[in-house]
């Protein structure tokens, strides 16, 4: 087991910052090429006219998940050293709903807003300012929210662990679910396009 390389001290944290920058560039390119620098494309996800967000996101998740799974199974990656955020059920559910609202109202998510700013979108700039404000509000309110923030703790746990299923089985189910979602999305898009007679971006 040699990977994750950083966890085995192949390089120090200063070098990791350079790597962060390079990975960020690749991230930004992928997002921009995907059309995610445009709020109208991101939002059209929620009107069923353009399901790009779902397609790109789930494809990315499935790709990374399969890659990580197989690299771990052959013993190249030590999966136990890959970072996992802890699970706090209720705060994450509530945070998700709030974030979803922010997504459709603001038209961006943090990562895509950066790409949009980089391509000159002024509304993205306003969005980023809004985010900073939201974080500040959260920080200031934290003493009162702290208890809720730490509630619903389930440890650092994966879906296979929680539901007592084999990791491989969950991987398979996720692939199935994603393909099902893609099929539904393609069908939905076609129906919408047929109704309006316009091409999908």
């Amino acid at each position: 087991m040699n990977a994750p390389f950083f966890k085995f001290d192949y390089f120090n944290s200063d070098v990791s910052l350079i790597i962060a920058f390079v990975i960020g560039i690749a991230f930004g390119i992928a997002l921009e090429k995907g059309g995610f620098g445009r709020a109208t494309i991101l939002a059209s996800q929620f009107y069923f006219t353009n399901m790009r967000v779902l397609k790109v996101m789930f494809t990315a998740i499935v790709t990374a998940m399969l890659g990580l799974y197989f690299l771990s199974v052959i013993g190249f990656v030590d999966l136990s050293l890959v970072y996992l955020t802890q699970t706090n059920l209720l705060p994450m559910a509530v945070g998700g709903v709030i974030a979803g609202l922010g997504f459709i109202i603001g038209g961006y998510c943090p990562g895509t807003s950066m790409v949009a700013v980089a391509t000159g979108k002024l509304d993205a700039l306003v969005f980023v300012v809004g985010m900073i404000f939201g974080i500040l509000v959260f920080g200031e309110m934290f003493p009162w929210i702290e208890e809720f923030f730490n509630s619903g703790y389930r440890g650092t746990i994966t879906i296979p662990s929680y539901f007592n299923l084999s990791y491989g089985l969950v991987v398979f189910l996720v692939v199935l679910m994603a393909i099902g979602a893609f099929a539904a999305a393609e069908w939905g898009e076609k129906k919408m396009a047929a109704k309006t007679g316009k091409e999908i971006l």
Partner: protein
Amino acid sequence: MTSLTKWISNAFEKEEGQEHIYHEAKPFSNPYLVGIGLGLVLLSAFVIMGRGLGASGALSTVVAVTVNTIAPEHSAGNNFYSEYLGDGTANPLKDWLIFQTLGVLAGGFLSGTISHRVKKGVEKGPRISTKMRFVYAFIGGGLLGFGAKLARGCMSGQALSGGAVLNLGSWVFMMMVFVGGYAAAYFMRRQWI
């Protein structure tokens, strides 16, 4: 239902001019290929660093550092800020996420420039003014900032990265984002379509 579709078709008609720019210079518009590319970037982060990507964390660090500069005692007593400030042994701005986010800015700009997609403008639907768009952008950003911090991550960190490692909380978050988005979509339709 027909009036709804009429509105949608009107939106697409108005967007035709901009659409055209996007149809040229798009080496791969296949969202699945983009997704695979993005997935590989994410995978490389896992294999090289043992962590996923992120976005909101960088902004949080900036906010925490700013608050700390202005009022150090205040941020020291606050568990949220202090987490982003570290234990004082290293400059909190030498943060992996900050450098990654700078990269995203660079990469987005690079890709946009090459495809002639860098243009000053405002993304919005045809039925809303720029001013209102800015108001909504600000509100949306505020909600997203707050929600992302409450959930310990945003779409990149929780949904994408956490999703790929089958993290329980991440999948819960991801599902609820879609719930929140679709729930409010009807009320926001004036802004987009």
